Structures are given as structure tokens and as C-alpha cells.
């Protein structure tokens, strides 16, 4: 049985339909990438999984239970955490307070503050600073650390590399090895296709709210991906 199973997921913003029957699955410990252009529905899909956007209960199943209609605090309590697009740190909280917000749900597991500081040594010395005083890369580290402190079994990463320098992105992607080492499954949402393909076991391509391509990175040609990404 898959850890995460999404079947015929539809989502609306008011009258506007953003997702038209998305189906995908993820096995425990697996890493999948979701790629697609702006407006393809990638972030909407993640909002649906995390409960920020209410969807039909049966359309999202996690570890055997239908979770589509649960509120976000019940979903994180089951072990799905997300680093949202644009990081969304809390500006009036310090670095450490931002990290501790992840622990708010009270899940036990391998991640605690000390391990996060071990993973991102630069954060320890800035822990009293306001989170928004950090560089973009360090802010993204806080966002990842905050999600890890929820001790998720499934981590969703929305556009981690957006707006960051290549060398910073490389460092951030390097920590995914430690994260996967704990058995955590990953969903990576990226516009940077080659970055996503290098990490993922399988990839889904989204276009205008539909899955247009699915497969293992090695089995897909660049032409196939280009077509699925842009259409035409």
C-alpha cells in the first residue's frame, strides 16, 4: 500500500477550478518530484494535501486513512509537514521561535533543536535574531528546520530553490540525504526541472491542473518532459 495516495483530486478557488482530477501515489521512503510551469497547480496540490485548501475526504489518503477533509493541524499531527513557497517565516519571531513552531504539534521522532543546529550550523549563532534578518538561504534553512521539527514521515517542499544562488541551492539539496536517511518520504515541487530530476525516484509533470507525464527520470527523454511541461 502506498503511503500517500491521491485519486481524482479536484480543487477550486471559488468558481475557478485549479485541479482537474490529479492522481498520484508515493511509497514510504520514496522521493517524488512534481514539476510544471507557473500556474500548473503545483502549489494548489500541496495546499490540498496539507489541508489549507479543503478537498474531498477520499481524494487524499495517507497511511490508509482518508484525510482530505481534515484541518491543517490534524494533518501535521499525522506526520505531513510542508515548507511553503516563499518560506513564510514568522517575522516577529526569532529564529529559534520559528523553529519551535514546528514542534508545536508535539510529534516525537529523530529531530530536535540540537539536530537542526547540527544540520545547519549557521543557524545556532543566529538563533536570537529575528528570522527575517537572515539571508535568503539561511531563511530557507529555518523553514526546512521548522518543518523537520514536526518529525514528519512525509515532507513537502515547495520551491525550495526559488530566488537563491546556485551554491546555496546545492547546500540545501545536500541536506536531503540526511532527511531521507531517517526514512522520511519527500515531495519536491520545483520549476527547476534538472534539479528535481537529479534527486527524485519518480517525477510527475503537471500542466493546467492535470498530470501530463509520470515516470522515472532515467526513462523520460528531455523532449517528453518539455512537451509535458509546456504543452504544444
Amino acid at each position, binding site marked *: 500500500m502506498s503511503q500517500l495516495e491521491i485519486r481524482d483530486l479536484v480543487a477550486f478557488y471559488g468558481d475557478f477550478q485549479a485541479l482537474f482530477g490529479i492522481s498520484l501515489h508515493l511509497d514510504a521512503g520514496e522521493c517524488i518530484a512534481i514539476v510544471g510551469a507557473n500556474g500548473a497547480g503545483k502549489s494548489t496540490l500541496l495546499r490540498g494535501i496539507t489541508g489549507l485548501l479543503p478537498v474531498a475526504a477520499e481524494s487524499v489518503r495517507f497511511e490508509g486513512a482518508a484525510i482530505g477533509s481534515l484541518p491543517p493541524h490534524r494533518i*501535521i499531527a499525522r506526520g505531513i509537514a510542508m515548507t*511553503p513557497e516563499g518560506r*513564510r517565516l*514568522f*517575522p516577529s519571531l526569532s529564529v529559534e521561535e520559528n523553529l519551535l513552531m514546528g514542534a508545536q504539534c508535539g510529534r516525537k521522532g529523530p529531530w530536535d533543536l540540537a539536530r537542526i543546529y547540527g544540520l545547519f550550523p549557521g543557524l545556532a549563532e543566529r538563533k536570537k535574531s529575528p528570522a527575517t534578518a537572515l539571508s535568503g538561504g539561511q531563511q530557507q534553512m529555518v523553514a526546512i528546520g521548522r518543518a523537520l521539527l*514536526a518529525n514528519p514521515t512525509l515532507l513537502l517542499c515547495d520551491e525550495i530553490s526559488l530566488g537563491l544562488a546556485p551554491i546555496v541551492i546545492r547546500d540545501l539539496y545536500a541536506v536531503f540525504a540526511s532527511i531521507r536517511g531517517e526514512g522520511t518520504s519527500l515531495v519536491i515541487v520545483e520549476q527547476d526541472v534538472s534539479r528535481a530530476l537529479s534527486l527524485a525516484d519518480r517525477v510527475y509533470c503537471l500542466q493546467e491542473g492535470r498530470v501530463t507525464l509520470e515516470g522515472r527520470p532515467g526513462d523520460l527523454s528531455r523532449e517528453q518532459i518539455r512537451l509535458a511541461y509546456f504543452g504544444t
Partner: protein
Amino acid sequence: MEWIDTIVQGALLGGLYALFAAGLSLMFGVMRIVNIAHGDLIVFSSYLALVVVQSLGIGPFAALPLVAIGMFILGYVLQRGLLNFTLGSDVLPPLLVTFGLSIIIENGLQQVFSADPQRLPAGTIDTASLNLGGGLVVGWLAVIVFVTAVAVIAALELLLYRTAIGRAFRATSDDADTARLYGVDTRHIFAVATAISLAVVSVAGVLLAIRTTFDPSMGPARLIYAFEAVIIGGLGSLWGTLIGGVVLGIAQSVGIVLNPAWDLLAGHVVFLLVLVFRPRGLFPKLVD
């Protein structure tokens, strides 16, 4: 000497205004809603204290914990059962609903208790005074009110900056959607904020009722004082709110010395001056 006396009395009065304002400030800070019924809830808690005092035959200070617990529960239920449904991207529904609530409370109190002024006698403490030397005499009650205000604000600061729930309050205030993503049940957090706000209101209401006579129609004026204290002090800063209350209290007592009809006017003039010259208040903290 008369001036020092005036300023000291005004500053002590400011403690009461800070208590009026602290609860308002907390609700605004966490939920960004302005509770128009705040003043009427203060008066409501005065009447609640009156009922407790009369039915149990205890003094007002002994009644305060009971009133505070009652108002805490009322606040939770009010937020969960009513105000949560008014929250959204539109700022108007919470304003209209709390405005309606204000009218309902005022008229309900009038129906049950009549418009006659009431008072909570606290025994000898009412008239006991403290001689500070040099001809400066202050009432014990005024000192108790001020010390209570400082203690309540210090407790709220500790709650906001040293506890997990305070962290959740601030995170929710920053970005409610992301707070939800990290396991904050915002409906519950909002209800707790209103509950704490009304517990603070109950302290203000009981002290008000000991200090002076009260009647059902005095809520809106308390709301104005609370507003002015918050704005003078600067949004988002609780210690600023205390200072805002003190500034307002001093302005009113100086005004009354200049001309007995000028007390309220002087307070409003100082408030307007602050708005003109320091529109973000004296100690602004909230950035957005």
C-alpha cells in the same frame, strides 16, 4: 505642589485606562479585530461582580477570581460560537457584529438592573490614604489599581514572550495560514485570546466598580479611553499601552484643574496631538 499632586493622581488613574486597553490590544494583536463591545463587556463584568458580591455576601476583591473565571469562559464561548464566524478577509463583519453585541449588552443590562447607578463598596480601603510626605497624599485604592495594572501587563508580556501559547499568538498574528500549517488550531487560539482578554476586562470592570459608580450606559466611553491608550502608546506594545493610559490619565486630571469641564476634552486633545505628531504612537512595535 498642587501640580505634582495632579500629575500623580492622573498617572494612577492611567493604570485603570491601561487595564481597559490591555484586553482590547490583545484581541486586536492576535486577530486584527476591533471589539466594539469591549467597553460594554467591562461594564458587564462590573455587574457580574455585583451579582457575585450580593449573592455570596463576599467582598469585591474576593469576588474578582470568580468573575475572572466566568469572563474567561464567556470569552472562549463568545469567540468560538460567534466571533470566529465573522473572521475573514473582510474587516467589516467583526465590526458590525461586535457593534450589535455592544447594543445588546447595554440594553440587556438596563433591562435587568435598571439605569440606576450602582457601586461595589470595598470597605475601609475605599477611603484609606497613603501619605507620601511633602503634603502628597494618594488613595490606597488608586495605588492598588495602578499596581494591578502593572502586574497584569507584566503577566501578559510573560505570556506572549515566554510561553508556547504566546508564541502561537504571535505567529498567528503574523500569518494565520502558515500558523495553521504548523499545527496551530487558529479557531482555538482565537478563542483563548478572547478568553484572556475578557479575564483582563474583568479585572478592569471590578476595579472600576470599586472606584466609582457605574451604570449600563458607560461602556462606550470606556471603549474610547481604551482606544486612546492603545493608540497613544503605539499598536502592539503592551508597555506602550500602560504609558498611553498614564498619558491619558494625566491629561484628564490636568484638564480638570484648568477647568472642571475640561477633563474629557483634555484627554481627547492629547490623543489627537499624538495622532498628528506621532501617528504610530509613542512606542510603536507593530510593523506591517
